[in-house]
């Protein structure tokens, strides 16, 4: 089923309907990326899906799904993944909005430099942040007495720390487009800073918040490095479960089931988020 869209993109199918060779070119251009997409993304995805229906006992059945859904570990991981991702996204949105406000509207020396550092920060690998946090809060770290890095709160802290810049970047771009005349009009009409933020800046920032928030949500759902590096024993998310099943237990069908669920949740939550944020933005 995954191959079908790719097949339709092959030019020979639809080209004869449109006369002349000039109508060919758009489809021709679309063919290589579509083929690459099919080969490197859809095909492996299809393999994963197929594997998830083939239990070790042989044949094709929904047994792996039944087994996985019945297990306590899966349900726990599912819940942990979703609440961690949602909470991290919320944290990133709030923190990112506040920081972007300060960088954009509070004149201080070096604001430009900070904004530029955000870009660099985005290129850091996620485990680096966790490592840095370990040095500060870990059991052997500078403030070693805290044990919370190995709790879900530690993961939450690390994810908020790492993903906040992903929200800030679209916000900074949006704020730089904001008409300062509007802010001035608001303040001469008697509005103080908090009201200007709520009534003038926030509505203008909604599309940027939606874009940053949906990106962070999906990234958090699939985050692996941060959870692994905090070494939180009780914190098993879906990607961790996939890793555990596939590598440690050699339960490939089970791992594939969890992976499929993870993908579906990512796509589903992302879709939901877009619908909701479009409503809010309109």
């Amino acid at each position, binding site marked *: 089923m995954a191959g079908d869209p790719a097949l339709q993109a092959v030019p020979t199918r639809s080209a004869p309907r449109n006369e002349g060779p000039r109508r060919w070119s758009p489809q021709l251009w679309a063919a290589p990326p579509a083929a690459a997409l099919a080969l490197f993304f859809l095909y492996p995805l299809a393999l994963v899906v197929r594997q998830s229906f083939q239990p070790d006992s042989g044949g094709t059945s929904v047994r792996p799904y039944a087994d996985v859904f019945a297990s306590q570990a899966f349900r726990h991981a599912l819940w942990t993944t979703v609440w961690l991702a949602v909470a991290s996204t919320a944290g990133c949105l709030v923190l990112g909005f506040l920081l972007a406000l300060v960088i954009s509207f509070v004149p201080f020396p070096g604001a430009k430099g900070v904004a530029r550092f955000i870009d660099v920060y985005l290129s850091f690998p996620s485990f680096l942040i966790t490592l840095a946090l370990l040095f500060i809060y870990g059991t052997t770290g500078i403030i070693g007495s805290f044990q919370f890095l190995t709790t879900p709160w530690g993961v939450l802290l690390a994810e908020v720390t790492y993903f906040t810049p992903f929200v800030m970047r679209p916000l900074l771009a949006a704020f730089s487009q904001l008409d300062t*005349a509007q802010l001035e009009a608001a303040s001469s009409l008697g509005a103080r800073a908090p009201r200007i933020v709520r*009534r003038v800046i926030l509505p203008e920032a909604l599309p940027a918040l939606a874009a940053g928030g949906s990106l962070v949500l999906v990234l958090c759902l699939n985050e692996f490095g941060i959870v692994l590096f905090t070494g939180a024993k009780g914190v098993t998310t879906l990607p961790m479960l996939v890793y555990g099943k596939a590598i440690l237990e050699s339960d490939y069908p089970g791992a594939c089931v969890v992976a499929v669920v993870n993908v579906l949740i990512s796509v589903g939550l992302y879709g939901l988020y877009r619908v909701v944020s479009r409503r809010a933005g309109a």
Partner: protein
Amino acid sequence: MSIRFDSVTVAYDGNVGSLALDALDLTVEPGEVMALLGPSGSGKTTALRAVAGFVRPVSGRVLLGGRDVTDLPPYRRGIGMVVQQYALFPHLRVDENVAFGLRARRTPRGEIRQRVAEALEMTGMAAYARRYPRELSGGQQQRVAIARALAIRPRVLLLDEPLSALDAQLRSGMLAELARLHRELPDVSMLYVTHDQVEALTLADRIAVMDKARLRACGTPRELYRAPTDAFTASFVGGANLLPVTVGPGGVSFAGAELKVETGDVVAGARATLCVRPHLVGLGAGPNQLVGVVREIQWRGATHRLYVEVDGHAVMADLRELRDPPAHGESVSLHFAAEDAVLLPAGVVGDGR
């Protein structure tokens, strides 16, 4: 409420070398419309922003109704402000835009509704209350911006080139509307920034002419137009012929011609500038005659404008549409009445406009 600039000096970014406003002294009386007129970059907007509180003077004070507001933030000054780009809030409907200032002041709900309706009625926008700004034309958006500024019942209204984004026809309509608003709100002092002399002459009780961060002249439109005190003002408030002359007994000499004009107390032998408005120059022989060569003719419908070269100086004449306009290169005579010329003691600045 009166607006007073008490030697207000503004420098952007602490750059004291180039001042944006250099020791401005100016008073707008209660209920008066003062136009700030000047070329681009002369500091008009800066002066307005100092009153609104968006720039802090490096020295001097701004007083509103006798109260020093120099250290007051913008939101506590109670000033209405209208700018060229309208600056409406795009996500709020027209009535919500107008209600913005009232909400910020925590006005009771019932009163907000009544005052919004009133402000929209006054600007003729009542029928558009439920629209978004993007669904309005430029002129309508500017009306909403004015309604929004008036809804808080400010006693000072600042307008920064409010009509310059509108086309010529709409502009003259809005000019009449602003004049009407001023009649309906006789207590509101208005400071009106423009670089369009017609707007200033039409609307203002007094005009302040600015140039290079300084106040050049201040007076009623009539004073500045009929009896300008310097060449810059003469050329900026209405076009002017500015002729370099030498003062003699009972008149001046220009390009070898003796012209009879009022010399006042300027001593004989001094060099001075003679200002003659183009529309007061006549074609043909007459008193105070100048002879020159036609260099350019512009037909402007109701009038012809002639550029006549007299001894190397271009003299402009606006004449009622000519049945037989002179040809290029033709030699013609121009004249003007003695009482239509003003002698300025200062030197010539450019050739006027």
